[in-house]
């Protein structure tokens, strides 16, 4: 039982780590701001959910698990709001969400 829980927790943690890595690579490699935000959102959602679920299994039925659940809930509420605020601010600053365009002005060669 203990080993099964450990394996499950490590699978979740590793999968979460992979999503965070993918999000990080995407945030660096994507061409413009909106696509980069899209890539980074993977870390907020799948990365956070999987990593916290893995840690919760490690913690077992303790107060720590409840605290972790509260943190997860908090993250799931705040990070989409932050993404909204960021996207909105970019829109107001005049950055066009043009999927076909090559790159941000500052990134253009």
């Amino acid at each position: 039982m203990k080993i099964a829980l450990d394996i499950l927790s490590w699978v979740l943690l590793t999968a979460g780590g992979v999503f965070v890595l993918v999000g990080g690579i995407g945030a660096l490699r994507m061409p413009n701001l909106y696509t980069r935000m899209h890539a980074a959102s993977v870390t907020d959602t799948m990365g956070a959910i999987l990593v916290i679920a893995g840690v919760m299994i490690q913690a077992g039925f303790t107060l720590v698990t409840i605290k972790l659940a509260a943190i997860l809930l908090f993250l799931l509420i705040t990070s989409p709001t932050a993404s909204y605020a960021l996207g909105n601010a970019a829109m107001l600053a005049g950055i066009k969400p043009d999927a076909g365009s090559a790159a941000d002005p500052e990134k253009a060669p």
Partner: protein
Amino acid sequence: MTVLFGVLLLTLLVITAVAIVRTKNLFVAVMLLGIFSLLIAANFFLLDAADVALTEAAVGAGISTVLFLGALALTSEFEHAATPHRWLSLAVVTGAALVVLYATFDKPEFGDPNAPVHQHVAPWYLQKTPEYIDIPNVVTAVLGSYRGYDTLGEVFVVFTAGIGVLFLLSARRGPAGRRRPDQAHDPAIGLRSHVIPLVVSRLLAPFILLFGLYVQFHGEYGPGGGFQAGALIAAAFILYALIEGEERTLRVLPQGALNALMVGGALLYGGVGVVGMLEGAEFLNYSVLAANPVKGQQLGIILIEAGVGMTVTGVLLSIFHAFAARDRA
């Protein structure tokens, strides 16, 4: 493992510091300063200094970022061109860095139990706290009681900073009111037209306040205390101000109330010390506050932590309002 993580975090810290110095865009520099604070908070946590980590995360990464942004709104986004004495500054910085590096050779090994810091008063604090004060968090006992004078000094530094900012920033405010009248109903102030941040902030603000109060009154048992709680409570009000606009925030908690918090907290702290003197003990000796000396110590710590929290909340919010209310020069 701890050492490995520590080296990684410190390396990232150096990279961030270099990036802060290199960037010409002050907005980017402010964001990097927030990352710098988060990294150093993680490092403090790695070294089991949870109280310091909480303070650094709340004040360094949270409040000071907002205050820097408030200051940036009043000035230019870009740094001025470099000053001509670059070689002189480089020489000074290199010299200072070499001296500091030379000093590190005499430092004890990481985690060395024979290091002077573990031999001086720390063992006494750890042994005697259950007997004299009887609270689980020794950090709060040290901060509130053994080193009460230092903490009083810190509170007065915060208080003085608040007074200084109020003097400097409210100097040119017109007698007619805080704002130009045409700005009062400007929809661009605050984000009230944006439903998502509005709903989420209204959902979260009570919980942030509750967590602030928890940190305030749980400081005897876990990481926390007046400084962290003050920063968290101020953060809840700043969130409210960012969304609902500054005017409505000042209606909830007017400047007069903030001044009262600022002065009242410092007075409460000093007053607890004076009461101790009137009861026949030394200044800031809490043992005489109750019939039982241990209960007296606990009561004293709760009271002075409340004073710290009040002053920090009042000062942080006053500074925020002072920046936000000022028209762009």
